[in-house]
């Protein structure tokens, strides 16, 4: 009986675990986008095994630090249930025009509040199933290169986080414009769910005239 109990514990996750998983997914997802869209030179990436895939992650110290800082904060917000959406915006450095928008919509199941950590409340969803769903989303991100237009200019990226109005905002963060694309086409991607957080992905890009 004890063994069975432990096994179910191993396979299910708490709110903290879910926030960890989701922010980890963002790390690999964002790295994949940066590599696949050629925002940084391919030499600055290294291969890493994750979700049963081999993914490219950045070795550039600046980018790495930036991602770690942002994702650590996002993890805190995820635990508090304050983040609604994460958007990766690709802009043209010279004209500041927004060219691409990778949108990750996050839904938080309110029954898993901060209280649930103390209670040790866990979900029934198997970690393997969650990782499989994440793998499918990352595969789709990779496959997007086949239809997205070429980014034929020097590009930069930025991460926007949509939070609740009453979320605590650290000093290092500031308000931003939503950075919409004036003439865009939207493609919906697969979604995944840890059964605490549900993440729906979609990419919108500028249509060439």
């Amino acid at each position: 009986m004890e063994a069975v109990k432990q096994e179910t514990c191993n396979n299910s996750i708490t709110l903290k675990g879910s926030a960890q998983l989701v922010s980890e997914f963002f790390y690999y997802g964002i790295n994949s986008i940066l590599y696949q869209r050629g925002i940084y030179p391919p030499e600055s990436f290294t291969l890493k095994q994750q979700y049963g895939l081999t993914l490219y992650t950045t070795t550039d110290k600046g980018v790495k630090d930036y991602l770690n800082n942002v994702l650590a904060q996002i993890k805190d917000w995820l635990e508090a249930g304050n983040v609604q959406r994460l958007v990766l915006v690709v802009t043209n450095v010279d004209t500041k025009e927004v060219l691409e928008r990778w949108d990750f919509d996050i839904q938080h199941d309110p029954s898993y509040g901060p209280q649930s950590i103390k209670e040790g409340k866990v979900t029934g969803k198997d970690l393997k199933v969650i990782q499989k769903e994440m793998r499918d989303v990352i595969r789709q991100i990779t496959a997007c290169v086949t239809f997205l237009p070429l980014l034929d200019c020097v590009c930069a990226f930025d991460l926007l986080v949509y939070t609740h109005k009453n979320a605590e905002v650290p000093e290092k963060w500031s308000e931003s414009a939503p950075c919409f694309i004036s003439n865009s086409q939207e493609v919906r991607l697969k979604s995944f769910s840890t059964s605490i957080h549900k993440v729906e992905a979609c990419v919108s890009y500028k249509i060439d005239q």
Partner: protein
Amino acid sequence: MSHLQFDANLNEALRMDGELTRGPIPRWQRKAQEQGIHSLNVNENSPYGQNTQWKSGIGILFIPNRSTTDLERSHHLLVSSMEASGGEKSEADELSLQQKEYQEKMSENLNDGQPQESRILSFKSKAPQAKEGYVNNLKVLYSAGKPTVPKAASVRHIPSVPEKVLDAPELLDDYYLHLLDWSVNNHLAVALSSSVYIWNAGDGAITPLVQLEAPDYVCSLSWIEEGNILAMGVSSGVTKLWDVGQQKLVRTMGGHQNRVTTLSWSSYILSSGSRSGQIFHHDVRIADHHVATLSGHTQEVCGLQWSPDGRHLGSGGNDNQVNIWEKGSTTPLHTLTEHQAAVKAVAWCPWQNNLLATGGGTADRTIRIWNCTTGICLKDVQTNSQPSVLQVSSVLWSSHYKELISGHGFSNNQLTLWKYPTMAKVADLTGHTGRVLKLCMSPDGQMVVSAAADETIRMWKCWGVDKKDKKQAGSGKGHPISMLARTIR
């Protein structure tokens, strides 16, 4: 003003402690009047409270005790709630419901579908930009310009035009299918949608073999090593074996739920990969032909090849994985996930048994060479160093030279010859106007045939052997594999 009057009336009606001035006379009064009793005494000492009436002959009439009810407060609450709803009403008058809805929608749209209680934040110190002078090398995906790549020195003449061009009407432009195979008897089998034709490379005769009934179409072709039996994977999930010499259907083998996209023979074992991701081994000699199921892929299997020594099977799938299976095993020896796109091109090296070459789709654009014993990637040709590798649809190893040929899609639709192991480019063979779908080698190893989405089949004499060389090859010289090495195992 009518609503003010209404309010006054309502207030009056709602006052519970006021005198009843309207409405029908209560029953007890009516009865009393009928019986001639005109005055009602309020009995102060009544046990039922001051408002209780006791009248003999009429019966007990109970009026609840209201002393505990805070009438003032109830009235205030009622009235104030009425006022509140009234206030909203008047606001709604100014701004009709439709307008309000419109405003909400507008602000939602302006805010990207978010209700306004969210705020958009970004980290103040931004990520560093890519270093200056960096040009997005994905350009190769879109541009049609010829890339400049250092070429390997080659002493032999490689004709840049095809030896022969065959017309292939209705050849399906589907990356996952294998519609071409060349037998040891010099027969080239081609699947054009639902029909299969055999082109005799010796005399150029064309024989129609079979025409399937719609909506079935042929997904894959593979000749048995002896060259007399052609295996045919059909979209309905069955695999058919045809005796080509007698033009006779020998056997139909079911099992797959989905189309059979790829086939590979290893003596009497025919392996078939399906859209479901499963690979079946069929022993074609026995009645119960389905002898093993390999389920290592989660999506369509699009590349399948037995090694020349029959000890390993290499499979590539739409799940971007390459699996290497040992003969007789149903769990993969190695699962290689380095490719970033579907792997259709799978080829074993004819002169070194443990070398496997694989090529990925558009998102990957890489040719990788693996050591199948260790599962280590020995070489990878990527867009970084060779901006000419695009969607790889097929890879073949030469049996005469230490070279590989790869077929590509988009922009140039070319075939590229590579030196092994330096992976320097020897030549580009261009001519196709649609993406190259499949490559096959002639039985003598000198010619390569390519089928492309432009509905043509072209033959390239890229590995031609001079007569002089041939003599040397016969004596074991000038040949990559000496006869001695071939016999020693």
